[in-house]
């Protein structure tokens, strides 16, 4: 239990957080509060949130005693529009969590058992630097991988590039957005980015393919969805589960899992057959339309009905709904799209659908993002690595533009690759790999074969339990980080400034990278004492300064290019042809289907159910499941089970069951059953990020089940290496299998 903070007293006027107009102020003047809220002076520093990847900019409020009181959104920020989501508001819990890592830890073998002992930073860095130098001397710096997520990764990237490795990887690629990145690059020449360039606030029709906006609390997008609802936009949601957004949709299509591709192709068929597509746009901006028309000819709604269970008239009606709204229509690219191993192709179908509706570059469709580049702080040029993860792949996954973390894992296991190309050391920053990666067995095998495993985190996560050295990072409220510069409607930047000193012996990643570099003789790559010097130098080059940014938090710059296409504009896309490539010559050259095809996916065997997983709005992955504020909102996940299935198995609400998957893997912990009509009878659903097995997480340990543990099978996308994870089937064990 978190200790009770002092009563919160707001001295609002001096802080500029008033959200009501002056006339409203008068309205409240006559009011006399009987509540004993004394006022206390509060101060603030700008930050951007690190609880998820949306990176909303806001303010950390603290009192004279340097006690953090709350975190509130910055009104000028396009990611948050001044309003944080529950995770951002509960972000103070990341700071106050009493289970935080506070000292560097070194693994020690003692009489057969292994323990961690607390160490000084100097000792921890010495151990790491010695090992890194040894690996570099014996094999090469390339044989070490940096695996990262979030802001800490930026600083370590500089370090490991200086060290000489190109094996830098983030699970957010092949376990999440990767298929979408490559498919949109193939089709439109660019990836929809983060935040996505979806013009939801002005759309007339929003189409979601398995995307559960509102449960995934992608702040700006959820806000814009609410604005669109206010303005009467229609929503079409395709999901086997009656998601929150399904309940707000004009059309909910309760599709049979794993058949989305057939629906997308049938929609394209209807738009073309009924001549509802944007003819001028297609003529001006795309190539391959005739091939597409021919390709989808036989993919009628009747054909798709047999596959998807969605009735032909519903497929036609929804296609017309999109066409009526076009070009103010968005078929959303989704975010986590690594589902079935043909995900680039499915995302291609999403892209093609958008293209023939003419939504790219149009108001209410996809706006054109514009960003501002942050000047690079002058550091020496690093040596080019002699090889990287691509070398050992020998042409496999040809469109992988970033390194799939699953490939790094494979390449770390002895015997999988030529020893010359084997990854011998991992430096993992800000990502809890055992809960993030599927195929836990491969992770564990790789870990056994490593010579060095360093984990950087704020919390004792599962990943830190495997490490040789654990480095305790301070939270985002206690540190400077790189400038946030995410292209959006208006180019903008945001800064993160510490509100308080780092707790205990925790340190920012910027400091760790610099000090470790010194130990490794790479100090010249970090020519500063404090990271704030880098920020001030960069900001001054951009016409601002750290001082100014401390006052405003977010700075917006005027656009230099239009946000939408001009009427009849023939835009030059960044594809080889300069057009939207409905038909992809590049895919054909690589031996892949140049137009998306439907592939039948395996169905659950008798007595098993497809495991679907997703998010809850108050949690981010597994990283918030010990946060005192957020755990108070949701402390465990539940297994959603259709009442028919529950009746067959004799399951009762809140009954604990263990899960067993198709490979015989049994969950470490039981999960409570939630019997609900909101889920199809052929699948079950759970929120990702629970079932932690690190006892150091006092609140999260053993609460609910870990979906990643059940994902022992993946279907790898041959195009870019993403791990399709919705191909696992589970059954229930009513008695403790232990």
């Amino acid at each position, binding site marked *: 239990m978190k200790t009770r903070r002092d009563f919160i007293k707001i001295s609002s006027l001096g802080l500029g957080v008033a*959200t009501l107009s002056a006339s*409203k102020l008068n309205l409240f003047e006559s009011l006399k509060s009987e509540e004993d809220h004394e006022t206390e002076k509060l101060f603030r520093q700008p930050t951007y949130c690190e609880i998820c990847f949306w990176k909303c900019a806001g303010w950390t409020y603290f009192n004279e005693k340097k006690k953090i009181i709350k975190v509130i959104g910055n009104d000028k920020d396009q990611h948050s529009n001044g309003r*944080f*989501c529950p995770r951002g508001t509960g972000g103070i819990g990341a700071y106050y969590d009493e289970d935080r890592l506070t000292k560097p830890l070194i693994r020690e073998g003692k009489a057969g058992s292994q323990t961690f002992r607390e160490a000084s930073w100097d000792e921890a860095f010495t151990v790491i630097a010695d090992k890194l130098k040894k690996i570099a001397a014996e094999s090469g710096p390339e044989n070490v991988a940096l695996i990262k997520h979030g802001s800490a990764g930026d600083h370590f990237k500089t370090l490991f590039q200086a060290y000489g490795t190109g094996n830098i990887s983030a699970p957010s690629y092949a376990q999440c957005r990767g298929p979408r990145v490559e498919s949109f690059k193939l089709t439109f020449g660019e990836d929809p980015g983060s935040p996505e360039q979806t013009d939801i606030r002005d759309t007339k029709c929003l189409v979601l393919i398995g995307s559960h906006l*509102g449960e995934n609390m992608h702040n700006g997008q959820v806000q814009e969805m609410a604005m669109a609802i206010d303005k009467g936009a229609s929503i079409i949601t395709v999901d086997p589960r009656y998601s929150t957004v399904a309940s707000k949709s004009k059309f909910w299509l309760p599709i049979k899992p794993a058949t989305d591709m057939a629906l997308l192709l049938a929609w394209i068929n209807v738009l073309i057959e009924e001549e509802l597509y944007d003819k001028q746009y297609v003529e001006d901006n795309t190539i391959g339309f005739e091939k597409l028309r021919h390709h989808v000819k036989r993919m009628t709604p009747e054909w798709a009905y047999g596959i998807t269970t969605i009735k032909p008239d519903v497929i036609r009606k929804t296609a017309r709904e999109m066409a009526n709204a076009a070009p103010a229509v968005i078929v959303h690219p989704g975010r986590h799209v690594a589902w079935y191993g043909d995900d680039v192709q499915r995302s291609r179908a999403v892209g093609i659908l958008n293209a023939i509706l003419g939504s790219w570059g149009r108001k209410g469709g996809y706006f054109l993002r514009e960003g501002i580049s942050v000047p690079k702080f002058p550091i020496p040029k690093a040596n080019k690595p002699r090889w990287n993860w691509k070398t050992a792949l020998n042409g496999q996954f040809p469109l992988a533009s970033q390194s799939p973390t699953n490939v790094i894992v494979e390449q770390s296991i002895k015997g999988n690759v030529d020893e010359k190309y084997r990854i011998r050391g991992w430096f993992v920053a800000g990502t809890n790999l055992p809960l993030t990666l599927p195929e836990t067995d491969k992770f564990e095998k790789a870990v056994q074969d490593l010579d060095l495993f360093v984990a950087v985190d704020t919390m004792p996560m599962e990943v830190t339990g495997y490490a040789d050295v654990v480095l305790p990072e301070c939270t985002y409220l206690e540190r400077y980080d790189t400038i946030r510069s995410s292209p959006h409607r208006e180019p903008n930047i945001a800064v993160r400034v510490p509100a308080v000193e780092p707790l205990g012996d925790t340190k920012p990643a910027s400091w760790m990278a610099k000090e470790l570099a010194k130990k490794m003789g790479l100090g010249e790559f970090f020519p500063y004492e404090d990271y704030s010097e880098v920020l001030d130098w960069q900001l001054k080059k951009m016409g601002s300064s750290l001082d100014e940014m401390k006052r405003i938090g977010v700075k917006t710059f005027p656009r230099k290019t239009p946000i939408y296409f001009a009427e009849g504009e023939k835009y030059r896309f960044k594809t080889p042809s300069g057009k939207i490539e409905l038909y992809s010559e590049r895919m054909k050259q690589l031996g892949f289907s140049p137009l998306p095809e439907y592939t039948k996916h395996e169905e659950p065997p008798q007595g098993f159910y497809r495991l679907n997983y997703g998010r809850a709005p108050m949690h981010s992955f597994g990283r918030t499941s010990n946060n005192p504020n957020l755990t108070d909102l949701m402390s465990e996940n539940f297994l959603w089970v259709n009442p028919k299935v529950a009746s067959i198995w004799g399951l009762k609400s809140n009954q604990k069951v263990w899960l067993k998957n198709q490979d015989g893997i049994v969950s470490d912990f039981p999960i409570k059953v939630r019997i609900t009509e909101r889920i199809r009878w052929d699948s079950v659903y759970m929120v990702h990020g629970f079932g932690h097995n690190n006892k150091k997480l006092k609140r999260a340990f053993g609460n609910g089940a870990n979906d990643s543990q059940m994902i022992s099978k993946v279907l790898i996308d041959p195009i870019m290496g993403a791990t399709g994870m919705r191909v696992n089937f589970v059954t229930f064990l009513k008695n403790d299998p232990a």
Partner: protein
Amino acid sequence: MRYAMVIDTLKCVGCSDCVVACQTENNVPIGYCRDWVVEAVNGTYPQLELEIRTERCNHCENSPCVRCCPTGASHIVEGGVVLVTHDECIGCGACIESCPYDARYQHPEGYVDKCTFCLHRVKDGLLPACVSVCPTRCMYFGDLEDPNSEVSKLLKKRDYKTLAPEAGTNPHIFYLI
């Protein structure tokens, strides 16, 4: 002056930001809450309806909690806001029993606690904490006696309901449906 809250169930996604914001703002101990989220599902797959709404004290005009309070700790102030004076509360719990909305809880320090419409903020010209953070902007706060206030306008324009109208409490939280 009659304060009221209007909540648009068509926009609410049940994210619970209102709950954390309230806990943080009003120092509600972890494990307790002054506001919470309800999800009501109706129908069978795939003919389903789901209503999501954030609930709290309804600041009733005819408030059973005030009527049954033996010490006068529960009382109504200007604007129709129902408050509890912590010092005068003996924690007998009669008000908790009498509330048809289950809006009150026993604070670990012995008194009964509940939503205050964040009067301390309102008096400073701010919105209640829950309203001020809501990402979907599904919550509105204002004066029902002012015909030009956002809440008055919304209730004129849209269909709405109140909770447990049969209790005759004349509640002041309105749900747009």
